[in-house]
């Protein structure tokens, strides 16, 4: 027993030390400064400034809208792609090439990827050229500086995460269960929705949570694709630290972003609880 405790101590010493010293305490410093002001000590003024102001609510709404749409689209596109890679592709080398293509954007920075979209989505970019030559539009559409443009860039960056988590879950599904459902007379669609899909739901949720949390706190992609016309919460917070140097108001913005993120993730994991595989059906 004593040796088990000792093992545990050695296993946890470094993780706890590093995360306390370089994560908990720094965040504590931000929390404290968000509730204080240089002159009047303890104050709620920074939060009042955020929560009693229509502009801030608008920024928060934009941030959430982009994050929620990014998550939905990533799951909607990621599931078919994961299915294709795990179930449909027979040729090993082609699947390998697809996985490399999937991981490749992840290995390149947000900048490189957003930069590609800056070129593609410009007024005379490839996307506008294609849409015009197809006769779908007669004037170039404005993508840069719109939420649509940001969304295209965000989904692009976050999609591989859902494909990987869903694909891993899908690969682990026992196909005998599906076969059993089919043998008992279920249509392929019914077999999918009542057997396969619930078994992969934990992968879907894991991917969705990664995507949502990355989307809500994204800075680079919105900053580059917004052209200064759309503002998200992370951009507002960064301004305070980098150009205004207001650690107190910036801290309050950071804590707001943090609390909103955690609240939504808590809600998401509560929703899936009891629906994970093994927890029993209805």
């Amino acid at each position: 027993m004593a040796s088990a405790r000792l093992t545990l101590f050695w296993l946890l010493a470094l993780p706890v030390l590093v995360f306390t010293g370089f994560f908990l305490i720094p965040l504590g410093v931000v929390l404290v400064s968000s509730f204080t002001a240089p002159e009047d000590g303890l104050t709620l003024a920074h939060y009042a400034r955020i929560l009693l102001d229509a502009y801030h609510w608008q920024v928060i709404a934009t941030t959430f809208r982009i994050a929620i749409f990014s998550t939905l689209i990533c799951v909607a596109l990621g599931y078919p792609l994961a299915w294709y890679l795990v179930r449909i592709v027979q040729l090993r080398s082609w699947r390998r090439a697809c996985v490399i293509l999937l991981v490749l954007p992840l290995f390149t920075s947000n900048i490189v990827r957003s930069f590609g979209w800056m070129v593609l989505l410009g007024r005379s970019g490839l996307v506008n050229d294609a849409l015009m030559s197809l006769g779908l539009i007669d004037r170039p559409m404005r993508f840069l500086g719109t939420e649509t443009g940001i969304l295209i860039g965000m989904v692009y960056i976050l999609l591989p995460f859902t494909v990987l988590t869903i694909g891993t879950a899908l690969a682990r599904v026992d196909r005998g269960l599906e076969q059993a459902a089919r043998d008992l007379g279920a249509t392929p669609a019914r077999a999918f929705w009542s057997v396969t899909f619930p078994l992969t739901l934990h992968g879907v949720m894991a991917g969705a949570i990664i995507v949502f949390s990355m989307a809500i706190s994204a800075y680079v992609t919105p900053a580059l694709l917004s052209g200064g016309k759309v503002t998200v919460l992370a951009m507002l917070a960064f301004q305070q630290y980098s150009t205004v140097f207001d650690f107190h108001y910036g801290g309050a913005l950071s804590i707001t972003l943090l609390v909103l993120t955690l609240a939504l993730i808590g809600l998401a994991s509560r929703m899936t609880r009891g629906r994970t595989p093994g927890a029993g059906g209805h």
Partner: protein
Amino acid sequence: MAARLAVRALALLTLAYLALPLVVVIGGSLTETKFLSFPPQGLTLDWYRVVLHDPTYVRSFLTSAVLALAATFFALVIGLPAAIAIARHSFRGKGLLSALLLSPLVLPHIVIGAALLQYGSALGLVRNFPALLVGHVVIVTPFVLRTLLPHFSPGQRALEEASRDLGASGWTTFRLVTLPLIRPGLVSGAIFAFITSFINVELSIFNTTAALNTIPVQLFNYVQYSVDPSIAAVSALTILAAAVGIVLIDLLIGLDLLPDK
């Protein structure tokens, strides 16, 4: 059958969507014009010569690579023991501990970066390599932990006990029994960790200087002023480096991200 066809079509379109910006960046870097254009007008490697003779780009590239390698190493050193403790031991505050160690995954990197800047300035831990490294270790460790945890299953315990009963030491059991079982998790965790560090802007941006810069931060600063083909060339080089890295990983340890069965 129609559903299968639709899934196939949608998947191929999605793959094209994933490839498109990379193709544009690589294509744009080959243009002979002074401004970025795609499709490229003429073909030249001149912009690569410009970039490779620019010492600031070369230095940033090396900084990023060393930083990502070091961060991944420390993330494994911290994440693996933590995963073993959480998966195999019972102790008070376990839920709290795993929440703490995983939370950088969901917390905005901008916030963590700002916090480390504010706190680090009190310790003199700012705008140097250790300051960058500390932040990167904090944000990449959760990737290792998160991908590792699902690979520990209660069933493995029986195998480990069997190994111990047959006389293997704790270390030998770990090396020969536990490690192969969790290898896929370790590999994908390390990949995610490396990626996350290598491409990070949000955290690095607080601690980089003109002399100590990472490649993404340098590009970020550059892209806001001008969009010329040399940026496309640097970007194309990072894509190339990424491709070489992925293929190497695939050949050396197998990129079993999406296993067969």
